[in-house]
């Protein structure tokens, strides 16, 4: 058994008075399935999560949306349990379940009163190897996903712009595809595409189980061994490494749609964790938009009143380099060009003059506090371990927090200069074409 010295250490650093520490137990079954268990007896609840190391980046060309459609199919049953009863069974026992797909991985989870968590093990083991792919169910679920796409993208102008900008920012890397898939691709996905993808990638040696909650490690591990232990490992292909050629000039996208207000989305290529610049990029993101006292909110929303909202989004927790986003909605009657210029002015400002120690510390405090607050929820805690595990090892949490602590004001200037520059950006503008009827 491995003790989580690391977690203990980082929490002691942040708040020297606390004695709280998560105690992670890590195991690997003979078939390659990795299991992480954190006992937390605060409340009689537990979460069981299965993380598959596959997402939209692993889809074949022309089949965008395949990973996500498979995620839907995982709820459509096995010979043992029959069609579309998975969630019903979970709910009958007072639990809740869901799943989501990202570019890099796919996660299935249940939340239960802790005395019922064993049910997850049987259900998840069963659908890891015995999923039914009834062609009729495939057609029906495909149309459900098309409705989901209409709901989230086709009828949402700002999200539509996001898809356009992401696609324009990449010309080679599969991060250019939306996780939900392009509509023509979705229409082309057949039963066999799903089946082959499932057989190739849903195997114990490509998965990690994360459990957090009021459980007994030895007991639950025995049950996992007996349910998952007999599933044969898959012959995984070597992971393809994708990379994107360097961008050599600004790209601009204009999207004309029925909408109310102009909207701007700017995306800069930026490295992901654990790249040495990722920590300073995180701090930079919070200096720009962490709370109402942040630079962009103060300048664009509070003082100039040219934007209704402004935000940055840098999520460094991707397998490959992704994007550092800035976005803003123009206030009624304001010119989106002025909004764009004001954004760039703030970026230029931080390139010229380092933020104060206090401002840098504020960003770090926000990151550290959110790490502690998130532990209030067993679900969030499990998610955190899962995300870092997908990047290679849950122990990277320690490296992340250490990295954040070391960021200096000069580091922030350095990454702003290096990444937030004109030739490296893709700019999207939503131009409302209102139907006045």
């Amino acid at each position: 058994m491995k003790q989580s010295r690391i977690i203990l250490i980082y929490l002691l650093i942040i708040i020297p008075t606390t004695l709280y520490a998560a105690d992670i137990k890590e195991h690997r079954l003979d078939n390659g399935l990795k299991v992480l268990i954190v006992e937390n007896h605060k409340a009689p609840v537990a979460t069981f999560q299965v993380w598959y190391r596959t997402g939209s980046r692993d889809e074949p060309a022309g089949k965008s949306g395949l990973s996500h459609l498979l995620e839907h199919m995982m709820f459509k049953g096995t010979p043992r349990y029959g069609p579309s009863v998975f969630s019903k069974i979970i709910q009958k026992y007072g639990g809740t379940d869901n799943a989501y797909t990202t570019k890099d991985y796919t996660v299935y989870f249940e939340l239960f009163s802790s005395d019922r968590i064993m049910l997850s093990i049987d259900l998840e083991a069963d659908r890891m190897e015995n999923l039914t792919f009834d062609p009729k169910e495939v057609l029906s679920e495909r149309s459900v996903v098309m409705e989901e796409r209409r709901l989230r993208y086709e009828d949402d102008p700002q999200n539509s712009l996001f898809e356009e900008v992401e696609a324009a920012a990449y010309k080679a890397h599969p991060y250019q595809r939306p996780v939900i898939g392009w509509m023509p691709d979705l229409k082309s996905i057949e039963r066999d595409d799903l089946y082959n993808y499932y057989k190739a990638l849903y195997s114990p040696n490509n998965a990690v189980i994360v459990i957090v909650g009021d459980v007994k490690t030895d007991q639950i591990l025995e049950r996992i061994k007996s349910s998952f232990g007999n599933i044969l490992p898959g012959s995984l292909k070597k992971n393809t490494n994708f990379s994107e050629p360097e961008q050599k000039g600004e790209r601009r996208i204009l999207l004309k749609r029925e909408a109310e207000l102009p909207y701007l989305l700017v995306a800069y290529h930026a490295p992901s964790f654990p790249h040495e610049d990722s920590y300073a990029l995180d701090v930079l993101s919070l200096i720009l938009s962490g709370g109402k006292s942040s630079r962009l909110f103060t300048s664009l929303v509070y003082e100039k009143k040219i934007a209704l909202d402004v935000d940055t989004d840098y999520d460094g927790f991707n397998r490959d380099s992704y994007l550092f986003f800035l976005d803003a909605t123009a206030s009624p009657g304001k010119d989106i060009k002025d909004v764009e210029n004001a954004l760039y002015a703030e970026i230029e400002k931080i390139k010229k003059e380092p933020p104060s120690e206090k401002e840098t510390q504020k960003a770090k405090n926000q990151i550290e506090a959110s790490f502690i607050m998130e532990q209030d929820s067993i679900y969030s805690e499990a998610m955190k371990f899962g995300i870092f595990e997908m990047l290679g090892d849950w122990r990277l949490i320690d490296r992340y927090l250490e990295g954040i602590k070391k960021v200096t004001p000069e580091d922030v200037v350095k990454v702003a200069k290096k990444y937030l520059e004109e030739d490296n950006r893709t700019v999207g503008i939503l131009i409302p074409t209102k139907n006045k009827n």
Partner: protein
Amino acid sequence: MKNSKYWKIVIIFFILNFAFLFLNFNAVSALNVKRTVLQNGLIVLHSEEHSLPIVMVTLLVKVSQLNEPKDKAGLANLTAELLLEGTKHRKSTDISEEIDFLGASLDTSTSRDYTTISLSVLKKDISKGFELFSDILLNPVFPQMEIERKKEHLKGSLRQSEENPSFIAERAFRKEVFGEHPYGRLMEGSAETIDNIRREDLVRFYSDYFRPNNSILSIVGDLTEEELNAFIKGYLDDWEKANLPPRSSNGLDEKKTKKVVKIDKDLTQANILLGHVGISRDNPDYYAVSIMNYIFGGGGFSSRLMHSVRDEMGLAYDVDSSFSLNKEKGLFQVEVQTKNESAELVISEILKQTERIRKEHVSDEELSDAKSYLTGSFMRRLDTDRKIADFLAFVEFYNLGLDYIEKYPRYINSVTKEDVLRVAKKYLDSENYVLVIVANQKKAALKL
């Protein structure tokens, strides 16, 4: 402002989104809660939980749109928002700077029935957190400049909401269902009513309603009784009680007619809302209605509507029915989005399912599955200090009693198939309802 917008909407695709939402409350078996009433009338609920160095504070003030005049709709919301925009000791920017520096959060929000101020803070920063919390609660000054800024911002946000088809649908739906009743209006008000609000309205509204004898304080987390008492002594003992303004009645004219509202927008999906006036939270049939609604359309993948419209017909990503639970009678609604061309088919399926649950008994299995979900998930869904803090205030506000956690399973388990049929007949109407469809009307080609 920093939020994980893209994380939520783009990278993650939940297969459905009802999971944590249905039914408004949760519970844990043994919450050790201490309830005290201060001399000034403030009710204090406290539960110690020392496993994490955090403290969650919720102050619930019994004031909402139910207390505001029609021509100044949005007054309750604007008052709450302005608490954070300047006090006797701090400017707006000082408040956000100090809170952000702690990595804490201090927010206000309004619901249909009440207003809350919430603080989430690390234990080590609790003194500063309490100081800021009590400053915005006790000493707001409503600066004219901030009022103007906030009004413009609210009007801008309302304008932006017009981009959102479900916003347009809900606004039209509430207006038809509730007419002149406050629940028929947006909590933000409209551009016109926001313009009618003056500084003196805000000052008076605050002074009338933000009183200890009109409030509930709920604190959960790493805080001892001694520490809590010191906070109360230091800040809240001098909060003065006062007589509350008399409550004028909000008459609700329940129309018994069918009304169809079609709104044309260039969309790929029809956004459909169908329903009518529902029940109030204190209706004794609440528990039978909870079970009936779970089976009908509230129970996610266990519901009849989800089974037919999504699983069998493949016509929607999500379909959901709900009773909103308020002090006064709230909404009953079915909400669904489907491609324009399928709108009519989905509407007729909803009506068919409504007829069915009004005419036939639910099966034994449906009844027992609903009961085991509702009782079995009760404990599980109260799994964070934040949720517990909000729950305690909620229980107190709706007079459910601190033993509600023990009573709830009994209430649920006593419901029979006959009760379910009776409440379906009584509270669902498949003939007289409001139906709002925001869609590309040409493609939807409704014959309704």
